C-alpha cells in the first residue's frame, strides 16, 4: 500500500505548482499548453474524488426516466435515453420538465469535475 498523500492530494499539489509557479514563467503557446495541462491535472484530481458517486447517481437518474428497459451500462443507458429523446420521449410538457431537471442535475455533477462554477450562471 502506498503511503500518504493519496492520488487526489498529489494531483491537487501538482496542479497548484503548475498553475502558480510554472505557467507564469512561460510565454506564448508553451504557456497556453502548460495552463491546459494544469487544468487537466486539477480535473483528474476532482474526478478521482467525485466520478464514482456521480456515475452511480447518473445511472439511477436515467433508470428512473427509462424504467426497466434502462441498460445497466452507463454509456448504453445514455445511448438508449438519447434515442428515446430524439424520438419524442420528452414531447409532453410535464415529462419534458422532469427530463430537463434530471439532465441539469447530471450535467451539474459533470461540471463539478470538469469546470466548477460554470453552472452559477442560470440565465440565457
Amino acid at each position, binding site marked *: 500500500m502506498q503511503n500518504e498523500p493519496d492520488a487526489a492530494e498529489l494531483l491537487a499539489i501538482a496542479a497548484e505548482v503548475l498553475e502558480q509557479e510554472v505557467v507564469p514563467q512561460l510565454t506564448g*503557446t508553451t504557456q497556453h499548453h502548460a495552463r491546459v495541462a494544469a487544468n*487537466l491535472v486539477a480535473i483528474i484530481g476532482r474526478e478521482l474524488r467525485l466520478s464514482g458517486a456521480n456515475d452511480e447517481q447518473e445511472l439511477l437518474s436515467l433508470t428512473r426516466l427509462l424504467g426497466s428497459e434502462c441498460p445497466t451500462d452507463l454509456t448504453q443507458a445514455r445511448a438508449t435515453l438519447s434515442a428515446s429523446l*430524439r424520438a419524442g420521449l420528452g414531447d409532453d*410538457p410535464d415529462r*419534458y420538465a422532469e427530463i*430537463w431537471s434530471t439532465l*441539469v442535475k447530471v450535467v451539474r455533477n459533470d461540471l463539478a469535475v470538469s*469546470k466548477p462554477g*460554470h453552472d452559477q450562471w442560470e440565465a440565457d
Partner: protein
Amino acid sequence: MDQNAKGLAESKPQATDDALAQLLATWLTEVEERTIAVDRFERVSAGARRLNALFDLVDDRETHRRSLTLNQTADIEIITVTTEAQVRAIAEQAGVPVPHIHHVCEHAEILGGPFFISTAVAGLTIPRQVVRFANKQSLGSVIVHQLGTAMARLHTADVTLVPIGIPVPERASPVSESLTRLDERMALLQQPSPTFALAARWLERHAPTEPERLAIVHGDIRVGNIIVDDSGLAAILDWETCHVGDPLEDPAWSTVRMWRFRHDEQRVGGLGSIHQLRTAYVDSGGEWDDDRFEWWRLLLTVRWGISLADQARSHLDGRYKSIVMAASGRRVAELEYDALMLLNPTRTTST
C-alpha cells in the same frame, strides 16, 4: 460548415521563421519586380492548419507592416486562399472592416502551403485582452454596434456574387439542412449525449420557416476573430468558414456563451447586449426574426459541443495530437449546460 474542420489535420514540421522570411522576400521581389526585403518577421500563431505571422515589407522608399496567412497544406483547406480573398473583397466592398489582401498565392511549393498577404491591422485579438480593454474604455456597446452594422452590410451584399468554392445549402434550406447535419454528427459521438438529443428534438419541433433570403455568412464572427483598437472594431478576421446560409446564424453565433469569456451578462462576446446588436443590425438593413435567432443560438451551441467532442476524438485517433484537442473532450459538459439553459421550460427570452 463544420467549425471543427479547423485544426484536424496532422501537424507538419515547419520552416524556421528566418527561412520563411527569406523565401517571402524572394517571392515578393519576383512578383513585384522590384527589390523587397522582409524584416521583423514574427509568428503570431501556428495551429495545425494555419500559420499567422506579421512582418515589415521594406522597399527602397517605405516600410509597410503586413500579415502573412499560410495554410500548412493545400489538402486541408476548407476554402482555397483564392476563394477566401474573393469573398473578403466582396465584404470589403460592402463596408465590412477586413484587412485588405495584397497578394494571394495558391502554389504550395513557395512557402510550403498556399498563402495570402494582407495589411497588418494594429489592435488586440486575444479574447481576454479584448474584453478587458473594451470594458475599461467603455467600448463594449460601441463594438457590438459595429459588429451588428458589419454583419448587416455583409448580409445585404449581393449573394449572387459569391465566388465558386463557397459552400451553398443544397436545397436553399439552411435551417433543415443544418439540423440534418447535426443529427448525422451526433450519431457518430462516442459518448452519446441525452442533452444534445433533447435539443435536437426541440430544434426539430420548433424549426422556424426557412429564411426568405439567403446571404453570405461569415460563420465565425466572435471575440477571438476580431481586431479591436481605440475606436472599437478594426477588422473581422478568419473567413474560412464563410458560406451561403441564413443570415441570422452570424448574430446568433456571436452570442454563444463560450465567447463571453466569463462576462456572461453581456451576451454578445462579453461586450454588450443582444438588443444593441439587433438595433444596429436592423438599422443597417438586416432582417431580424427572434424565433430564428433563438433557434440558431441553440443549434450552434449544440454543434459547438459536438465539435469539441470531435476534437478530442481527433487527438485520440491520431489525426491531430494535441493537449488542447484532448482537453476539448472535457469541455463538452459546458456546452451541454449552456444548451440546457436555453432549453429551460420556464425560460423567457432575454436580451
